[in-house]
């Protein structure tokens, strides 16, 4: 038996997470994720196939894997880089 949950995980972006579970599995598995139009297609396919669909943005967001690129602004990484370069330039930091 499988379920698909779909919702807007953030404004303007629809997300879908497909789960599979049966008694032989120790826990439900995330078998597919999709965002945008792919998410809308996935939800349509699930509905056509009679798979339960739950609309819950927070749940979909919690099941979607975090992506490194969207989590931390590049500006932060650039500041970290500048600080490491600052430390490298300190007396005694040249190994």
């Amino acid at each position: 038996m499988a379920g698909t949950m779909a919702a807007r995980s953030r404004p303007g972006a629809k997300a879908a997470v497909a789960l599979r579970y049966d008694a032989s599995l120790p826990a439900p598995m995330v078998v597919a994720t999709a965002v945008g139009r792919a998410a809308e297609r996935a939800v349509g396919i699930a509905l056509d196939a009679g798979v339960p669909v739950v609309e819950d943005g927070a749940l979909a967001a919690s099941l979607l894997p975090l992506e490194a690129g969207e989590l931390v602004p590049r500006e932060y990484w650039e500041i970290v880089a500048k600080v490491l370069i600052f430390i490298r330039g300190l007396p005694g930091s040249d190994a």
Partner: protein
Amino acid sequence: MKSAGADLKSAPGALSNSRAEGTPGTRPAAGAPATARGVPARPATGPAAASVSMPAAASLPPDRIPGLLLSLGLPDDRSSRIALSALMGEALGLDGERLRQVRLAMARPARGGAADGSLAARLAARAIAAGLDPVGAAFERVLGLCSREGSERGDGSAADGSEGRDPGDGRESDGRRDDGRGGQEPGTGQGSAGSGQGRAGAPVALEVPPDRLVAELASVFPAFLSAALSDPDLAAMARPGPSGKGWLHVPFSLSIDGVAFRGFFRILYDRDARKAERLVADIRSGERRRILELEPGRGGPRIRYRCDDALERGRFLGESFPGAVSGGLDAEATVELDGYGGYDGSAE
């Protein structure tokens, strides 16, 4: 906010209750077992001789701390204050049993990276918030990865304690030397963090022209983050707590022109916004430790820099970091109690 567990149960056949305990964003009920890597966990809460539950506190006036600790049956010492700060950093309720669990984690021998056990305290509180055993397998491994020994080798195992220059000196480089690339391509070398599939904290060596160094480094850090997100223990320990927020720990190890850096990032993220709210870099180089903290501010990130060298703090404030403040390391372990005070200098 509705709990994910409740929603999952409302979807017939979608998920079982057993999954809800391990689902990101959910916590088991008090006393219910949680698991990490299949290891049975002890209940997050349990009977206590003296336990006073308090709601998660946004702030705690300093003059209330001694009385609070006394009422919870705990001594008003530095360990208790670090434990208190760690729980507050997770927006967890302050009760005696949780504080004792965190103190127990701090007391484990030769653990934590920081001499005062603040890393162990924060990880124990993080484990509690994530619904895991505060001193379980995930806690132990992440502690090893983030502490000096673990980040030396990137696998949590014991290291030889070597200091200074990266002995690998590029042998585990991902090919990010001065090849003129934009730094966006995934690495190909063994041990690379650039692929995003490497070991968490696996070392990277950089030798690039100075004018490209910032951009190159800024491209390397997300690869460490990707590696951490792919690590089951780091991911489990990053599960959001009751507040919907979680701290992700990201070990890193790199060298810049032969100068070795190691340590870890602590990244507070909001599950629903999927954005980092705070980034704390715990940076080791040689025997020296620095803490860099970034969070959103008006006009750009707020920058806080901590180290024990007053002269270095002065140099830092002289750099081009608008609005930065600096202070000693001592106050960092109890930063949640101090209201992010304790800074002795400002670039403004």
